């Protein structure tokens, strides 16, 4: 079972309408690169100059990757990545 990447609702238009995409990858970086191969319009919106954009948070099995190893965080089959806009406040 590969890695599942969940796409936030308003971004699904850039993933052929899909709510989630399955990819193969050894770490977060390669999993997202694989996503970009299928849906470049999506990863173009996630990354800027090779870095994850300021207001995008990426979670691996509900853990923020910034508290793990960022893009180098290893992933394995069955893992879930979520791409979530950063909005903490209230």
């Amino acid at each position, binding site marked *: 079972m590969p890695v599942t990447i969940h796409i936030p609702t308003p971004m699904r238009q850039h993933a052929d309408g899909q709510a989630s995409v399955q990819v193969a990858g050894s770490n977060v970086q390669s999993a997202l690169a694989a996503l970009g191969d299928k849906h470049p319009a999506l990863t173009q919106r996630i990354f800027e100059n090779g870095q994850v954009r300021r*207001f995008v948070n990426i979670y691996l099995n509900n853990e*923020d990757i910034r508290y793990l190893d960022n893009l180098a965080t290893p992933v394995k089959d069955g893992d879930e990545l979520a791409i*979530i806009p950063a909005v*903490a*406040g209230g």
Partner: protein
Amino acid sequence: MSSPFVRGLKCRLCGQAYPISATNFCTEDFGPLEVEYDYDALADSLDRAKIELRPFNMWRYQEFLPLDGEPTVGRQVGGTPLVKAHRLAHELGVEQLWIKNDAVNFPTLSFKDRVVAVALSKARELGLTTVGCASTGNLANSVAANAAAAGLESYILVPSDLERSKILGTSVFGAKVIGIKGTYDEVNRLCTQIAFKYGWGFVNINLRPFYAEGSKTFGFEMAEQLGWRTPGHVVCPMAGGSLIGKIHKAFNELHRTGMIDKPSCKFYGAQPTGCNPISAAVKNGWEAHRPVRKPNTIAKSLAIGDPADGYFATKVIRETGGWAEDVSDAEIAEAMALLGRTEGIFAETAGGVTVAVARKLIEQGRLPRDEEIVLCITGNGLKTQDAVADCLEEPAVIAPSLDEFSGLLAEESSAVLV
């Protein structure tokens, strides 16, 4: 029939325009969306005289808020006191100190009633019937109360270790309260996912652009109460980092529409040391804040490790020539007691943070002693009583005897003489 003063939503990063809907981020770069106004139309339609005829509550400045019609939720919110704090000024060694006191805001005793009144009125305009929020406490109280009064169903998600009084103060309104075993940031992430899945109106997530505008009324009132002018210095607590930026925006909007002179106010952010991503960014000169994974502070209302408006708050502080500081839990509690005994105001922990940081900035020479300073008090201390308990003396307990009482008084005066 939409507001003639609202152009739509706009990305704060790339400027991309969007129509009004329950959405909070740009699909080009995930940037946060903000309401965009037609300031020329506003300037033509509104002036100080017109505002002054209206009842003193937040809707006095209605044209600056993103509703199409009359507000249907929170009609009495705002209009809180601006208190001249002579005794606290004396204690801190400054000449002119004011307190904008939202500890007595209606209906739930925090500034959150302002943002919720806008968000829920907007939710109604957008046809939503279920609303919710992710909260560190004050927002939970406010959404629950205002949703109850409006007949809206509400789901309130909080960290499960939140102060009991805040949880009770939310459940009492009949809201569905759910404790999440995690930090506030995790609660927020979950609510984002819930909002996407169920389409409910989460006031601080998918309704955020409308919600955020309500904070401007704190600033509008402050300027009007000072006599249609801005102070030299404003000290503001920072959780998500939104309020400080919205006060700055309010001052600019009053100027832009010809109601006040160009503001030259400096903004100072206040955080607890146990969760200080924004003050650390300011003090270290970083452009972006570094998120705090496990906030650890009694100021739970400010315990947001990854503040959505951190970047913008840092910018406002820097651009206005202000600064930021953070204080320990002990300093927070002591400052809550100080505010109580000098001004008769019982603020929650965030208020203690603000007063303690103001003191620190004054002692550092960053806040000048001879210029006007306004402190932002955003919530009531009844919600965080435990935090201040250790700073207060237990009452003496005596028998119902006049002699014993007189003895007590004598002890007290001899203690003072010593």
